[in-house]
Every structure is written in structure tokens, then in C-alpha cells.
């Protein structure tokens, strides 16, 4: 707790687009009310003077992509009572981790030329692969309302309630015609809700940005997409796009691409 009796909070960015941090800043209607509940002592995106900790709550955005970041996340963890990973990069690897499936030396050469020895590049992983994470707010970007609900829950010592059921829940409630029935490769049944099914509501397929549901049944989704004419490559791309960490799951390996 800070001098004012409010929990101290640090907000940190790792490898990603910084959109989740920006989304916190976008909570314009309630930002001042939020500041009544918490004391943000560290947030480099917003503040020029930042504390070096410790913090009651650390919100961490981005994936871990460099050795230097491994050390940094460990330091933050050691200095935080509660650590919350925000956004899909932090919770599941996210879009940056596409590079895990490419030839990294060739990519370095293409982008930075022959002199690239100075680059500190390791396979991308999520925050939970390196340190203990107390709560995860997935989504690309992280949902503003979910962030507010989480702050409120943590402020009163409750466990934040993050949906682990399918996007189909929110999609059906909005009475959207099912995109799978229109032969579109939708990830709704295997993807966690919380987004309000925003993509299917506007006719775009779910891309799986909030990560797999609890006890995900990829085998069944694989079969459905396959019957609709998707190739193994299409399906792999869908499953791994936002959640490269899925590639290491035994259930995923069983799919035999």
C-alpha cells in the first residue's frame, strides 16, 4: 500500500504493439475514478517520474522476446505482490510469436542485414513461461471493461472473473447467424469469450485472440474446419495465429498436422 492507503500499481510493456497499455489510457470516462482506487507509481508510457517498486499489483503487457526481458520480468515479479498479464501477447504469446515458426537467422538478415550479431533474440514465450502469473486478461487488445472489473476485484481482494467459456455464448446471445454454418472458418467454439463476440457480430470470423477455452477440444474444431474444406495449413494458421504457445500443448501435437 502507498502512503495514501491505496494499492500501488506498476504498468509495464514488453514485446508487443503497446495497444493494451494505450487501452488503459483510453478508459477516459472512468480513469479518474480508477485513480481513486489505485496509485499508479510506475507507468513509463504516461509518467516521467517512475518508482522502482515494490508494487502491490503489476500489470504486464507484451510477450517475452529477448533475454534482457527475461531478467526484467523476473525483477518485476520479485517486487510485486500480484502480477496480472494483460493482452494476448502476455497471456499466449500473441502475434509477435509468428516469428517462432520462421527461420530466425534469415529473418534477422532480411530486416537488419548481415551485421546482426548484436540482436538479442530468443523464441517468444508468454509471461507465465518465466514467472508465476496470478491473473490473465487475454484479448487483442485487452478489454477495457475487463481491466476495470479486475482492478475492482483486486481492490476488494476477490478473484477477477475472466470468462473461460466459448465466444459462441456471446455470439448466440447477440443472435448472430453462425459463421461456421456459412462455411467460414470461425474459431468461436474453441475460443474464450469476453470480447462480446465483436468480430462475428460484424460478419468476420473469430480469430481466436482470447486463447483457448477451458479444456479445449481442438480435435472437434479441426474436424469441422477440415470438412468445410480448410487445409492443414489453414487450420494451423488459425490455431497458432494469436496463441503460438498452443503448439507445445500435447492435445495440439495429437492433431498430427
Amino acid at each position: 500500500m502507498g502512503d495514501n492507503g491505496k494499492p500501488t500499481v506498476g504498468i509495464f510493456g514488453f514485446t508487443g504493439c503497446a495497444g493494451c497499455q494505450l487501452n488503459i489510457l483510453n478508459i477516459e470516462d472512468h480513469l479518474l475514478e480508477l485513480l481513486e482506487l489505485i496509485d499508479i507509481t510506475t507507468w513509463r508510457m504516461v509518467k516521467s517520474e517512475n518508482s522502482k517498486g515494490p508494487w502491490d499489483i503489476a500489470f504486464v503487457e507484451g510477450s517475452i522476446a529477448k533475454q534482457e526481458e527475461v531478467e526484467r520480468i523476473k525483477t518485476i515479479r520479485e517486487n510485486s505482490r500480484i502480477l496480472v498479464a494483460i493482452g494476448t501477447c502476455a497471456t499466449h504469446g500473441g502475434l509477435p510469436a509468428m516469428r517462432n515458426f520462421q527461420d530466425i537467422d534469415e529473418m534477422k538478415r532480411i530486416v537488419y542485414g548481415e551485421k546482426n550479431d548484436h540482436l538479442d533474440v530468443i523464441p517468444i514465450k508468454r509471461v507465465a513461461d518465466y514467472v508465476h502469473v496470478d491473473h490473465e486478461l487475454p484479448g487483442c487488445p485487452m478489454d477495457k471493461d475487463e481491466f476495470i472489473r479486475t482492478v475492482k476485484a483486486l481492490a476488494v481482494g476477490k478473484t477477477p472473473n475472466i470468462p473461460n467459456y466459448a465466444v459462441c455464448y456471446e455470439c448466440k446471445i447477440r443472435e448472430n447467424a453462425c459463421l461456421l454454418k456459412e462455411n467460414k472458418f470461425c474459431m468461436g467454439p474453441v475460443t474464450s469469450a469476453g470480447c462480446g463476440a465483436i468480430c462475428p457480430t460484424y460478419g468476420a470470423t473469430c480469430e481466436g485472440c482470447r486463447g483457448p477455452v477451458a479444456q479445449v477440444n481442438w480435435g472437434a474444431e479441426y474436424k469441422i474446419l477440415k470438412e468445410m474444406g480448410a487445409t492443414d495449413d489453414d487450420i494451423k494458421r488459425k490455431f497458432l495465429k494469436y496463441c503460438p504457445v498452443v503448439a507445445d500443448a500435447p492435445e495440439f501435437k495429437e492433431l498430427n498436422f
Partner: protein
Amino acid sequence: MKRSNLLKLVQAAMDEYDVYGPVQRRTTWVFDKIDDPNRIDMDYDNTMMSLKKFFIPSKEVMMRFNLREMSIDDSLPDVKAERPQLLVGVHACDIHALLFLDKVFGGKYVDPYYVARRENTTIIGLNCIDPCKYGFCKSVNTHMVNEGYDLYLTPIAGDKYYVHVGSPKGDRLLTIADKLLGEATDEGHKAFKTSMKHKHKSLPVGLHLDNINETFDMAWDDPIWVRLGEECMNCGSCALVCPTCYCYDVADELDLSLSGADRTRKWSTCLYHDFALVAGPHNFRGDPSARLKHRFYHKIRGALHDHGIIACTGCGRCIEHCPAGISVKDVAYELQKRWVGAPVVKGG
């Protein structure tokens, strides 16, 4: 009554009621708020979501409370003060679904929010004289209604409806519709009989449930549950579109002052991992296939035990909207065949 006069009736009723009717949306239909009666599609196949949304909304605040002020603000008076709703074009299966929900929410434990909305609603039913794509109402005896409607329309020759009046609320509607419909003529009675004969010929019977109770008693260890468990993604679509699935979750949503909250209930389904998760943590149905099996058992065996009827109205929504193509009809048929012999299928 002339079909075109129904639109006039709806137009006139809009002064008094919030009117909802079937409207096409992409590949399906929804019961939508009607501002222009011409949007109503009385030839609709089936809507994605059933009528339960009008009585148990997918999310509703039941009360607000504030600990600083020690105040409670129940939302029931607001629910009671809502404008009356008129539901137009309700199929027989959906009327049966409401009669089932009446047993659940208006029986031993009365849910005042449900009852208030139910009392505040008038229903114009629509007799299906042709089958819909996925329904199997005649297999579960929900293709005709004895009660649960205020007006009931049977399409007859000459672009007309033969109208049954089912309640004082229906009578009330007729006063609005004063000059829009007349007493049935001999020709009308004859046309009604023709329509009904056509109906009983055209609705298929693909399944008989005579032994379903004992079938389910025996089928607990049936290998079908393992197979279905592999196909099912526990997405919950079946339960969400089901007109009789009524489970909900209650949670307090804190406001930013941390001193007050909205006590909110929202739909939930037994297909979800956290549904039977309790402290410990212990999950009574931790295995995904156990959750799918539980839903089938509750719909059929459990509802029979609790209410004397199965909680399946044969509307076919769960079949139509299951991404994995699982069919309650095929499951019931397969189990009956395996455990009590092939059901006798009477001619349509």
C-alpha cells in the same frame, strides 16, 4: 382474418404494446422489435433464439444495493412497470416451451421477475401446417396446443387465418382489431379442416419416445457419451438456443466506489467448465463429456422426474445451431434402438 389484416392489427397494437415478431437475419430469423409491421415474416422457418429471452433476459440486474447508504433497490417494480409485450407468430413448440418454463419459474419456487413478464405478455400463436427444416414436434407431441396462447392463427386458403381465441387477453386484442376480422364462415370452417388435414399429413414423425425414460435409465454407461464427448466442444450453443434451458448465474458487479453493486443474473449452461465448479476446487462434472451427458439427462430423464414431461419441444434449434452437428433426435433414436428395440415409427 385476412393475412394483410394481421399487419393492421400489429400496427394498431403498437400504441399499447411493444411488439415482437420473426424477422430474417442472414441465414436465420430472430424475434425482433417491430416498428414496421411489414418486417414480420410469418413464413419463417424457425428463429435462432427462442422466446425465453423475453422472460428471462440473457442478462438482468435483479437489484442494486449500497453498503454505505445501506440501501436496496429491487428492480421488480421496474419489471412490473414495463410496457406490455405482444409476441406475434409464435410456433406451437415455443408455446409448449413457455408452459414448461411456467412449471420451473412459477411452480414450487416462484420467480417474480419471470412471472411479472409472463403476465405482461400477450401471445399470437401460429399453427405450423408445413414442417420446418430441423424440428420434430410431432415426435414429441408439441405440434398442437391446448393452452398457452391468446390468439392462435391457422393459415387457410385465400390468404387468410382461421383464428382461435384462447384467453381474455386474446379477447382484448380483438377489441383493437374490431373490424379486422369477422366471424368464421362455413367456407372458413371448411378451409380450416383442409389446412389441418394437410398439417397432419405433412409433419413427419421420425422418432417415438414411448420408452425414453427407461432407455435413459439403462444408457448411463452407453459408449455414445464417449463418442459425443469427442465431437462436442462444450460451446454451449445448444443450451443457449434451447427454449427450455433456464440455468443462470448470479454475480454482484461492484461499482467503482466499491460501496455498491448490481446483483446481476445472466444465462449460463451446464456445458461450461465452471458450471459445477465449487470450492476446493472440486468440479462435479470435470470431464467435458460428463457435461454433455448431464445436459441430455436433465432435459429428458430429469425433467420427466421433476415435471412429468421431457424438456424437449422438438423445435430443432440445438440441431440446427450445433457447430459439431450433434442431434438430440438422433441420440434419442439411437439409444432407444439399442436399449429397448427399434421404436415403432407411426406413419406421418
